[in-house]
């Protein structure tokens, strides 16, 4: 049975669980899960999706966005992603989440991150992401640790205050 999207309506506890490392990134089951995740992400018009959003608690995220911040022709698939460096410079983005339908909240994140991950061939990569992809990585990796954008929002009132003057430039994205 294909994997389907879960939301906080009925699945809040599942979304707050943390996910396990993938033992073998090349396993056929991983490939099948990734295909389902990409299909769900595209059907829901998100730019990223984490495995726990289809109720599978494995450390896998997919993106429909390239390193240049624009929609990628081939989705980016990251297994066991780890943020290794984050910028001290911060950005605030209006984030949306496929698992929290209809909500958009401003979340403060690092402007740039570097991320180490494995692909489905088991090859290790390191990517330096900025702009929307950097924010999307932080949003999706949070899902792997059982953290939602609303959990971040709830703790950031003082951080947000630093951004009030530039509120106009905040952009809105349905990240996933």
């Amino acid at each position, binding site marked *: 049975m294909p994997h389907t999207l879960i939301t906080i309506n009925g699945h809040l506890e599942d979304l707050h669980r943390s996910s396990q490392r993938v033992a073998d990134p090349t396993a056929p089951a991983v490939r099948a899960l990734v295909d389902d995740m990409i299909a769900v992400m595209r059907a829901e018009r998100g730019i990223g999706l984490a495995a726990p959003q289809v109720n599978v608690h494995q450390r896998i995220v997919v993106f429909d966005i390239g390193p240049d911040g624009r929609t990628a022709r081939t989705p980016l698939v990251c297994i066991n992603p780890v943020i290794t460096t*984050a910028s*001290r410079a911060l950005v605030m983005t209006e984030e949306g989440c496929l698992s929290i339908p209809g909500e958009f909240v401003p979340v403060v994140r690092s402007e740039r991150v570097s991320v180490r991950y494995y692909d489905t061939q088991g090859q290790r990569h390191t990517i330096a992401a900025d702009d929307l992809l950097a924010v999307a990585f932080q949003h999706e990796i949070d899902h792997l640790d059982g953290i939602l954008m609303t959990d971040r929002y709830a703790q950031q009132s003082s*951080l947000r205050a630093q951004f009030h003057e530039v509120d106009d430039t905040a952009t809105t994205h349905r990240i996933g």
Partner: protein
Amino acid sequence: MGTGEFAAPSLAVLIAANYSVVAVYTKPLSVHGRSRTKAVPNPVRARAERHAIPVHDPAGRLSDADTLATLRSLAPDIIIVAAYGNILPQSVLDLPRHGCVNVHASLLPRWRGASPIHAAIRAGDTQTGVTIMRMDAGLDTGPIIAQKSRAITPHMHTPELFALLADDGARLLVEVLPDYLRGARVPQPQSTHGVTTCRTLTRDDGHINWHDTTQSIYNQFRAYDPWPGIFTLWHRDAANTPLRLKLTDIRPCMDAPRHMPGTVFSTDTHPLCVATADGALVVKRVQLQGKNDMDARAFVNGYPDINTARLGEMW
């Protein structure tokens, strides 16, 4: 053959069980850094000398002609190896009638290599143990004579586990040695599944990644106590190089506020907490580079700007 606290119990039980220990091989006295006067005491050497057993500490390789000739002249029936820190050449492995037998501090084939105790705690293993193994030319790949497991409890640190396993290894060694020497216990090949390896630690293994989970960073702390310890970088001001801040005592805090990883904050009861990927760590003691180890509250009072810091490797 062995060095340090891990080998000492094995030597002690062999002596107590009246095995004729004809010689002890250990590493040369190590000289640390520039202070040549500060030799690290070697409990194996001390115990051997107390029992009037000749101690050899060849500086070169065991396969060197002179060293090998000396070893051959001792005509050992068996060589017991524990934390010796040198690879044994084939010429030595073949020398004793019963081969070379190693006391290794993990359940092989998990954690082959130089730092099995640290590796098990770092990985969050809840069980480890000791293996008595007939050595072959590979790195901890020889067939297994006996194994005994031991639980790693959630707050156990390396020194405690180290002492327990050294003791377990010694007990298991004397327990199985008579059967092994009689040929009643045939070494069994290691499983080809579940193989993991570990390498010699470096100071950078203690570098904290705050995007790691609370449990994982706590495991890193338990594993690398007392050396290399764990540290983070504090970019105190943009112009200067970041300061190294060693965290000398920490506790996990699971249901913490969701701050960005690396963010420093305080609570009513804890003056110094740092956010991780999924929670936070309570810092009890710290040591800023060039300063003494101090209580978290004293540190926060002395360096109040820590309260607005974001720690870690950053651009």
